[in-house]
């Protein structure tokens, strides 16, 4: 059996949520949308302002892209991983906290890392005092953050609160109480949704319950649809291949690949990756792998709702 990662349960409403709540809702006006918006973040990190975020992302991306904050999905994951590693240093901790913040899988690892870091930080004048450790965990992350740390901020401490892992894991897959729809039926153990890809001759179906996070889903989709991409499988007879490959090349050059989108319960097409994994699996009705160029039409509206995008790179 593969050893479970030693990490903590990350609730859906952790620090960034409280930070958002405490910091007010200037951007969203009376509705205070920010307060209800769930963000993914490493504990102790602040979710930056959206406007700042774009600039920040570009600066941190390993690749240079065309316009907008576009990144390959795998880059996003790997990038987040890199940031984690540098979070040991003080300077990059801020960026690391912010940039790597947005995917729950990384968030979980980050949480474990951070708290492990906090606990292992004997050189940080250790008093065996939880407050001390919390502060140590928090210091780097909130340094230089112009929004400041919310007073209700809690850093994560390993093994606290003392709840059995089994319970934490089980509750993590339960739907959030506020979102429960009394009439909604949930599948017993699987949740198959259709996945279409622009240009592919047929659709596929995936079981969302078979995955625990966006990373696993994206790998599975990449495997499933890789045969439709140019140059990897020649026998599909996709018409106009030459034309496709030309635009494909252009796409590659511009760095815009395919974008994974999904239709949610309300019928809206959303970009995959914004919301916590559990929320996504609960609201996703079907998925579509769009060409990046198509997704721009989606973008202005979606831009309001997200800070980052999930991309599939083949």
């Amino acid at each position, binding site marked *: *059996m593969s*050893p*479970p990662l*030693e*990490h*903590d*349960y*990350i*609730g*859906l*409403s*952790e*620090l960034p*949520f*409280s930070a958002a*709540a*405490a910091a007010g809702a200037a951007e969203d006006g009376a509705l205070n949308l920010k307060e209800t918006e769930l963000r993914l973040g490493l*504990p102790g990190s602040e979710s930056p302002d959206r406007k700042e975020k774009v600039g920040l992302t570009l600066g941190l991306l390993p690749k240079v892209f065309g316009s907008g904050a576009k990144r390959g999905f795998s880059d996003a994951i790997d990038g987040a991983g890199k940031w984690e590693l540098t979070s040991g240093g003080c300077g990059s901790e801020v960026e690391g906290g912010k940039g790597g913040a947005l995917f729950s899988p990384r968030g979980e690892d980050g949480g474990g890392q951070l708290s*492990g870091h906090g*606990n*292992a930080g*004997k050189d940080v004048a*250790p*008093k*065996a*005092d*939880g*407050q001390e*450790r*919390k502060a140590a965990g928090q210091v780097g992350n909130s340094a230089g953050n112009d929004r400041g740390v919310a007073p*209700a901020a*809690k850093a*994560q*401490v*390993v*093994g*606290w*609160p*003392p*709840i*059995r*892992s*089994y*319970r*934490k894991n*089980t*509750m993590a897959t*339960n*739907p*959030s*109480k506020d979102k*429960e729809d*009394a*009439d909604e*039926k*949930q599948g*017993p*153990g699987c949740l198959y949704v259709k996945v279409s890809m622009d240009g592919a001759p047929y659709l596929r179906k995936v079981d969302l319950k078979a995955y625990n996070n966006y990373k696993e889903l994206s790998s599975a989709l990449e495997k499933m649809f890789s045969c439709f991409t140019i140059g990897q499988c020649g026998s599909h007879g996709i018409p106009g291949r030459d034309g496709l490959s030309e635009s494909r090349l252009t796409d590659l050059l511009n760095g815009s690949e395919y974008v994974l989108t999904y239709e949610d319960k309300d019928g809206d097409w959303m970009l995959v990756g914004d919301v916590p994994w559990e929320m996504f699996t609960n609201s996703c009705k079907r998925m579509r792998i769009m060409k990046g160029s198509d997704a721009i039409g989606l973008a202005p509206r979606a831009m309001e709702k997200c800070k980052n995008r999930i991309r599939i790179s083949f």
Partner: protein
Amino acid sequence: MTYFPEEVVEHIFDFLSSHRDRNIVSTVCKAWYRVERLSRRIVFVGNCYAVRPGRVMARFPGMKCLSVKGKPHFADFNLVPHDWGGFALPWIEAAARGCPGLEELRLKRMVVSDESLELLARSFPNFKALVLVSCEGFTTDGLAAIATHCRGLRELDLQENEVEDHGRQWLSCFPDSCTSLESLNFACLKGEVNAGALERLVARCVNLRSLKLNRAISVESLARMLARTPHLVELGTGSFTVEHRAEAYQRLIHAFRKCKSLKSLSGFWDVAPRCLQSIYSICPNLTVLNLSYAPAIQGADLVKLIRHCFKLQKLWVLDCIRDKGLAVVASTCQELQELRVFPSDIYGTGTAAVTEEGLVAISSGCSKLNSLLYFCHQMTNAALITVAKNCPHFTRFRLCILDPGKPDPDTNQPLDEGFGAIVRSCKDLRRLSLSGLLTDKVFLYIGEYAARLEMLSIAFAGDSDKGMVYVLNGCKNLRKLEIRDSPFGDAALLENVGKYETMRSLWMSSCDVTLGGCKALAAKMPRLNVEVINDRDESDEMEENPSDMHKVEKMYVYRTLAGARNDAPEFVEIL
């Protein structure tokens, strides 16, 4: 007494139900030792590394039931690295050789491989009951082996284990000839099972009294099974996802009405609050209700449900019940003995779901309360003092204030007085978990008043070594002490080394104990295993010879007759 024939002595010993009593009589004289050991049927090993398996089998050849516990308690909270130990295989192998008449095996916090389960399944022809609690390391293949080979199996009880899913066929491995099951609990399995095979199994096991389904079981299936098991006493409902308009729901209500013996309910993972009405007919008979995995049931619906449950003795809920809901529990459930309130929103700063008010309400209504596990956002000394006065019968009192080191919000004082009142008032207190802001004073109180205390859990508490010393010198019956993130160091550790031989174990993590202190302890007390557990991340960076001044991240000390264990992983150093 020594003139009595052995059969008479043995008969007298039959009346001794507790292990401790039997252990004591066996030390009286050689004759009694011999009679006792040959007649002992139930053996309990609290720490799997305290004694070698072979020795247990040799001493108790007539053993029928064996219970073994493995990892320290804090392993539940990810404080013990994954491969630390606690393997079941040596125990099963030894039992297979020495006690082939074994009928029951209970394991807690151990690593159980499929290989062990297969060996178990084949080695004991009279095997009747397997109970695994908080274990890991096995898959549904191991369960298949049990189902296939254990003829006459009566009980298969899997509680909160991490089981890897290798397919749904394991349940179909129960042969058609298997009709002996009385208790089946697979609630912790994540994967699907073969519903048809399950329904047939349930139908033919006429003595089935306890059935706990996992989340994958549909309501339709549940309704069918309930129709065949009207004598069921305990039920875990599975996900309970059903449309209240659906036919299955009607069938379910009908089936519930026929189950007059149902006393215990759990599950309800995905239930829609509207569908709770289906169990109103059973509620008046319920003594045990576990809704702690049902976050969909909020305050008002929860309260409506609980108003029907006036015979409840044991209630597990989430904190979305709120203080008001607890007040309803207090007025409705006069027979309540055990209450557990779990947090539903662990890191949120959202509205405080339960506070000291809820606990005070409970204490004023439920005078029979003796066991409490309460996760809350805040607690006051005044409240604890009131609770202590209202409920002097606590045997287990575990309070977890979610914010570590939080003081009394009304007075900004530490909670020393509150917990002090608890230990003073509850003379039978056996288990205590502390939280909130606490100074050395609380330990002074505990050392002085908690005479029957057996297990104490400390986190983020205390000011100095004195705190720990108060406890070690004071609590005569202390068996397990577990401490994390508290300022206790070598002086405290070495103050009363003899004490540790009277205890099962001591755990200290993120305290001020140094490697030198641990070495000193190990040197003074050869019959203790002093394990220094290094964080895996660090062990690569660990110097070859860390200095004695180096603080130890995690230390686990336990008495043992078996010497240093030979299955310790690299990151565990046994001094």
